């Protein structure tokens, strides 16, 4: 590990420096490709995002007079008919089971009814089927989107006030959108159903991504303070130095943040298969990695890009180059 701390020392002193700002074109192109793939692949591979029953509503089966209220029996029975559907199973009262699935065709619905009756050893007539509406209705989505837009606007204002420049807000929010699109894209490419748990995961990522960007931007703010009066270094160099100086922190933080999530994703989800835990931990796992990546490779270089063209920095950079 002493090697890692040597690495930290070298990054801090500037003796060793990774040129993030200078290679920004490559990162922009990578981001462009990733965003394009995220936009295209989910629909090309799986016909778009598959929304869960919580968003679209679906079929509901009610089995009454059962001897066993095991949830497993119902899940297996549904899988024999429609293997790809993940049912929501609830025990109701003391002798009933409620099974909710995606919308099913008439034939499928009848087959599920028969399978459930067989699994719980009751007459087919004891299984009633009906429709159930979305419990994550359009009203929740509308309010959530409204909340997000207001939050992003507030966050932009707060950052602009604190950092005294709108360009940091802009760079941070572009990186945020980059993270959201790519996280959603990878989720869609894997073909998992979008559940409320996944949406909560995305929201958590939004918070994390912005948090991570603000930490690095605070170091950039410090390093670029009055840099236009420097005769030795330029704005772009100072931004790059800030990314390098916070690199050890970025790596440590993302590892610490991602370890518990990875444990849930790989241990919890392999033990349990599909479900809330897998959906939320997958969204978080992708999001934390993408969020850390985008701060270093997108937000900071983009910020430098936006500002180094300002007259005072161009003038200062020319002086440095001449000396």
């Amino acid at each position, binding site marked *: 590990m002493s090697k*890692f*701390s*040597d690495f930290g*020392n070298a990054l*801090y*002193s*500037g003796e060793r420096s990774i040129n993030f700002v200078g290679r920004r074109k490559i990162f922009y192109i990578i981001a462009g490709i990733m965003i394009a793939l995220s936009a295209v692949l989910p629909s090309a591979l799986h016909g778009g995002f598959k929304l869960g029953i919580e968003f679209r509503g679906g079929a*509901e089966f009610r089995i009454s007079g059962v001897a066993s*209220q095991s*949830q497993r029996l119902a899940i297996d029975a549904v899988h024999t008919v429609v293997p790809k559907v993940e049912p929501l199973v609830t*025990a*109701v*009262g*003391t002798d*009933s089971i*409620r099974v909710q699935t995606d919308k099913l065709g008439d034939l499928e619905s009848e087959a599920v009814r028969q399978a459930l009756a067989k699994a719980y050893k009751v007459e087919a007539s004891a299984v009633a089927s009906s*429709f159930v509406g*979305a*419990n994550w*209705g359009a*009203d*929740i989505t509308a309010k959530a989107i409204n*909340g997000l837009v207001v939050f992003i606007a*507030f966050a932009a204002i707060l950052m602009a006030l*604190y950092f005294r420049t709108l360009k940091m807000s802009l760079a941070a929010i572009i990186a945020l959108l980059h993270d959201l699109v790519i996280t959603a894209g990878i989720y869609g490419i894997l073909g998992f159903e979008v559940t*409320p748990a996944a949406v*909560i995961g995305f*929201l*958590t990522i*939004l*918070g*994390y991504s*912005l*948090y*991570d960007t*603000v*930490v690095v931007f605070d*170091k950039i703010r*410090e*390093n670029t*303070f*009055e840099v236009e009066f*420097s005769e*030795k*270094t330029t704005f772009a160099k100072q931004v790059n130095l800030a990314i390098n100086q*916070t690199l050890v922190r970025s790596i*440590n933080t*993302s*590892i*610490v*943040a991602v370890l*518990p*999530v990875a*444990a*849930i994703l790989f*241990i919890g989800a392999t*033990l349990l298969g599909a479900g*809330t*835990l897998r959906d*939320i931990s997958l969204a978080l796992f992708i999001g934390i990695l993408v969020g850390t990546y985008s701060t270093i490779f997108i937000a900071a270089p983009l910020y430098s890009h936006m500002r180094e063209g300002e007259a005072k920095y161009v003038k200062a950079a020319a002086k440095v180059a001449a000396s």
Partner: protein
Amino acid sequence: MSVSGVTKSARKRLIWLGALILSIAGLVGAGVATGSGATLTPKLALDLEGGTSIILSPLVAEGQKITAQQLEQAVGIIRQRVDSTGVSEAQITTSGSNNIVVSIPGTPDDNTLKLIRSSAKLEFRPVILASSGASASVGGSGSSATPSAKPSVQAKPTDASDANWVTPAVQAQFDALDCTKQFRTPGQIDDPTLPLVTCDSNGYSKYVLGPVEISGEDIKNATNGTTTTSTGASTNTWAVNLSFNDAGAKKFSAVTSRLYPLTDPRNRFAVTLDGYVITAPTTNAVITNGDAQITGNFDQVSSKSLADSLKYGSLPISFQVQSQENISATLGSEQLASGLLAGIIGLLLVVIYSFFQYRGLALVTVGSLVIAAVLTYVVIVFLSWRNGFRLSLSGVAGLIVAIGITADSFIVYFERVRDELRDGRPLNAAVEAGWKRALRTILVSDGVSLLAAVTLFVLTVGSVKGFAFTLGLTTLIDVAVVMLFTHPMLQLLAQTRFFSSGHPWSGFDSQSLGAGYRGRLEFKSSERISATKKAKSSKEAAKRQTLAERKAAADNEGSN
């Protein structure tokens, strides 16, 4: 600050933190001991614990149908009302084409049921006639002759208080009304342009009321509280305070100025809720500011419940509870168990990683995480008791991500201290200087997180609101732990020989942090420090200068 001063202030902060944790835990403990509903473990949400599923069916007249739009609107309003009782992440959905299913954790009490199903249609109507609640035809109620407006000529009424509204048919209905019996069909909808014959909700008085003057749609906000006397002292009477929007305020001002000069009972206006009079006060003044207070037969719980119903508007139709059943958790207990197991394994990995990265300092990291966990636990237990907070699986996931954000505060801090050590400061000074810079970063990044949490909490509903609550809570705890635990601990540790001598296992090993290395670069660290101290401008400028120097030095080295 002298060394002992630092120690003193560090100890003071640690004591504050201990007192904070103990006092919350003490409150919960007292709550458990007195049996007022507190528990030692957090209450769990629907997905983890199950709860009650209530099927509501609409009360509509024969042959009438409820539209899909009305149903959606009702779902939205009920959701807001349920959310107003606490962060319980209830689920509300439609079932078939008529019914609404409300699933809430635990067992609902009567007030919650009322809040969910009552239409809460609030109307202000002027009083035209009033008498005690028994039917006049039953007679012998002790009240004097049935009052009647009896206008000599039945003319068209000119305003809502006009006695001409009392037609012989209305008078007959009024005379026959017996408040002790059921006289309204559930879900009955009254024509707002016609007079209403009804009783108060206790059945003590009956009224003929004029047409609706102001309805619940004009209410901007509703809160509950106790009334105050003219001297400002608080009384024990619970009331619902209403504030009207501009249109409502204008109407209210017009009504009060019309009623004020009239004589009893026509100087009274009645507030009806779902057709029953809850209060019918006398107009004492012309009210122009759009604020009104309703007193009636309220206690704290029922006044809060009414205020919440009014705030989110009335349901387009009334509902009745068709069935109420216990439901199990949708996620088996296996999900929570393996989630927790995985979380613990993840935490162990974090501990191992920080020992590699920060050596002895990892004790502070682990200690801080433990303190954060304890603080989070007692706060959640406290909030499940006082605010109806329920922990869902998404909430658990949010708490696990919070490990990362909390740990980041220490990482930012430690890295800053290391940066200061690299600049050649002794550990004591490095801790103080590093803290100053780190605190700024921690506060602004947590500030953005808190902003996200508050915005989403205020503007959203359902599980998004639950998420926002968890985010805000963990962010505040992060700030508390880093200020009241991590920093004081580091201040105290910086005074021990183990850390201040830069022991190889302390995590602040000057050797590995580049002191020898700097020697090779022919840096004179003492000079650099004095340069920093001499810089009279700002600290930032000094920092920039040393960075620039260092960069230049590095460039020289590179070109050699």
